[in-house]
């Protein structure tokens, strides 16, 4: 085997230079030219300040905004305890709770009670795979309209139109599921208020 170490070392080195350095850096450069917004993380700005990424959900709890799905991301606090840290985009992850987990059932029960709805679409009380899901289902958004209308003093019809305008259908009419980007929807809310 020893006589193979020279070719092995040389090839590993060459492919490291090619696929580990030249190509990734080349694509960083290409990304800047071809799709700078996307290659940089699809960051949205207001008055020069980054307010988030179009692709990454953020934690919203005020009654006057559309709320994202629950997020299972946790962090470790100063005392070393694991505490919830929803939509911490420096991290990612899921609950990994089993379908027969007592913790899952209790969590969903509590979420249902907080919402005060007898029936909800599944995405409204379940945590996503990434903990950063930027989308909710259109049914989820519609169910939140009474709360937002009351908090902002807006007519529900205007909010329903806004949700409809921000609903993305299946890609090519076939792939994925219909969805609403929560951050974009909430940004549009602000413009509605200014009118």
């Amino acid at each position, binding site marked *: 085997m020893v006589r193979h170490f020279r070719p092995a070392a040389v090839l590993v080195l060459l492919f490291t230079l090619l696929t580990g350095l030249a190509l990734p850096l080349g694509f960083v450069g290409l990304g800047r030219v071809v799709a700078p917004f996307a290659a940089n993380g699809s960051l949205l700005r207001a008055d020069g300040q980054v307010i988030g990424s179009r692709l*990454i959900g953020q934690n919203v709890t005020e009654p006057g905004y559309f709320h994202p799905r629950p997020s299972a991301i946790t962090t470790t606090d100063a005392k070393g305890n694991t505490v919830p840290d929803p939509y911490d985009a420096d991290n990612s992850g899921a609950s990994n709770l*089993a379908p027969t987990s007592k913790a899952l059932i209790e969590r969903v029960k509590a979420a249902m009670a907080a919402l005060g709805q007898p029936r909800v679409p*599944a995405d409204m009380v379940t945590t996503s795979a990434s903990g950063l899901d930027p989308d909710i289902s259109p049914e989820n958004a519609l169910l939140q309209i009474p709360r937002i209308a009351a908090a902002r003093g807006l007519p529900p019809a205007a909010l329903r139109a806004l949700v409809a305008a921000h609903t993305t259908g299946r890609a090519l009419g076939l792939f*994925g599921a219909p969805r609403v980007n929560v951050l974009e929807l909430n940004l549009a809310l602000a413009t509605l208020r200014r009118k």
Partner: protein
Amino acid sequence: MTLNGWMQIFVILALVAAVALPLGTYLAAVAEGRVNFLRPVESVFYRLAGVDPDEPMGWKTYAAALMALNLLHFVLLYLMLRFQQFLPFNPAGIGPMSPRLALNTAISFVTNTNWQAYAGETALSYGSQMWGLTVHNFLSAATGIAAAIMMVRAFCAGGLKTLGNFWADITRITLYVLIPMAAAMTVFLIICGVPQTLAGPAHAITLEGAHQVIARGPIAFQEAIKLLGTNGGGFFNANSAHPFENPTPLSNVVETWSEIVIPFALVFMLGRMVRAPRQGYAIAAAMAMILVAAAGCVYAAEAHGNPLLAHLGVGHAMGNMEGKEVRFGTAMSSLFTVTTTGTSDGAVIAMHDSFTPLGGLVPMFLMELGEITPGGVGSGLYGMLVYALLAVFVAGLMVGRTPEYLGKKVQAKEIKLAMLAVLILGISILCGTAYALNTRSGLGSLGNAGPHGLSEMLYAWSSATANNGSAFGGLSADTKLLDYGLALAMVLGRFGFMIPTLAIAGSLAAKPKLPESAGTFPTDGPLFVGLLIGVVIILGGLQFLPALSLGPIAEHFVMLAGKVF
């Protein structure tokens, strides 16, 4: 289940077939050295390495060269992970990995497993991701494909003493297949929204005035090869479920497609190289039938949802959404689950731990079969060829014919080696699970109680042994027992399976190529496809039935009875 869901599944599979067929012809041309548009680059590589690409190797030399490259590359990655704090491209200032975790990670990537006992965004610098993991994604994929090509050569002619040159194979596969495909896919992914940047994490002030740190990095290129090379190691903890790894349904179509297109193409390459395309179609048909049946089972289970949540008033129209992303929905999540565990990929777009019990059983079972539907790049083909040899042997015993496959007589030596390879999987998975569950440390790792806890541990050993890398993520994997134990399982599953198959190739190559006669059992028709599926399920799968009964099957029935843990 909806018609739309089934259409999503079938259109993606049709796209795979449409490209895998011509790609198989191209792969055959690459394997036979007929593609050489980068000859000048190749020559430089060979000259610096001091090798003659036309120097033939016997199976032992080939295996030794393969092991030398992998051993060296393993040591290099270990050192990179231990000293990443001193290396460039570390904008977030990430420190070194612990020796134990670095060992587990280096083995994980050199074996094409990409089991991740760490979270990428907090444990790895951009540099480690690029020149560490990305390079391993290329070379471990090329290693698998080279081993498969070498085995196919054994069937091509009679009386061969040599089976090609490992250095030439690995160079050509990387230059002519993996890099061009990864490059095209990278551009598509960037356009879809996958970042490719060296800038550090972004800092945002959210709508409610909170501070949000958004991790990003040079993701797109690594994402492409992670799927094409059936590696599966995510840039982020959430893997391909992370919106930066897989932002839209269309990016997901391509990511799903890219996991299985090369494995299927390699089967068609076999048909081309042995000058009998129908032989390739037969193997592909067996793989595809198991894959489609598996996708249907997962989709049915996940679309039905969790009855325990339905009782509380959670709508069932979207299916089981715990651990799934809205943009993908249940159908795409189900298909990805089987394409990632039917191959050795192990990337995930939905969290398998939160699947319904039967939805979680299927990916486990596909890994336990040894990942041959269609399997990892290269490893799927040589794995299925092992089963094909066993199938003709079983058929030979039943009807009293001398077993042959693709014109080569299959004798005791090959069958012993084939059984050795298959048994290594079962021994590693079942003994590993049983041992871990009998230790305090193993039980302490479990994230869920009841039968699901057993499923978590069984899944981990299945995934590591089959070099998959996906997990029932509730399991705390960074413990002494699991870091070392699963590292051993990964090495056994990769090289303990690969070396016997290379030995089979060496043995078969030396035999004369027999002309087809009236006594030859046809291996290109529906009868053989059925037999092959039967051997895969009975010989490969049945040994895991008792363990599966105690885990997911038991959980399914207690779930129906309304019991929680």
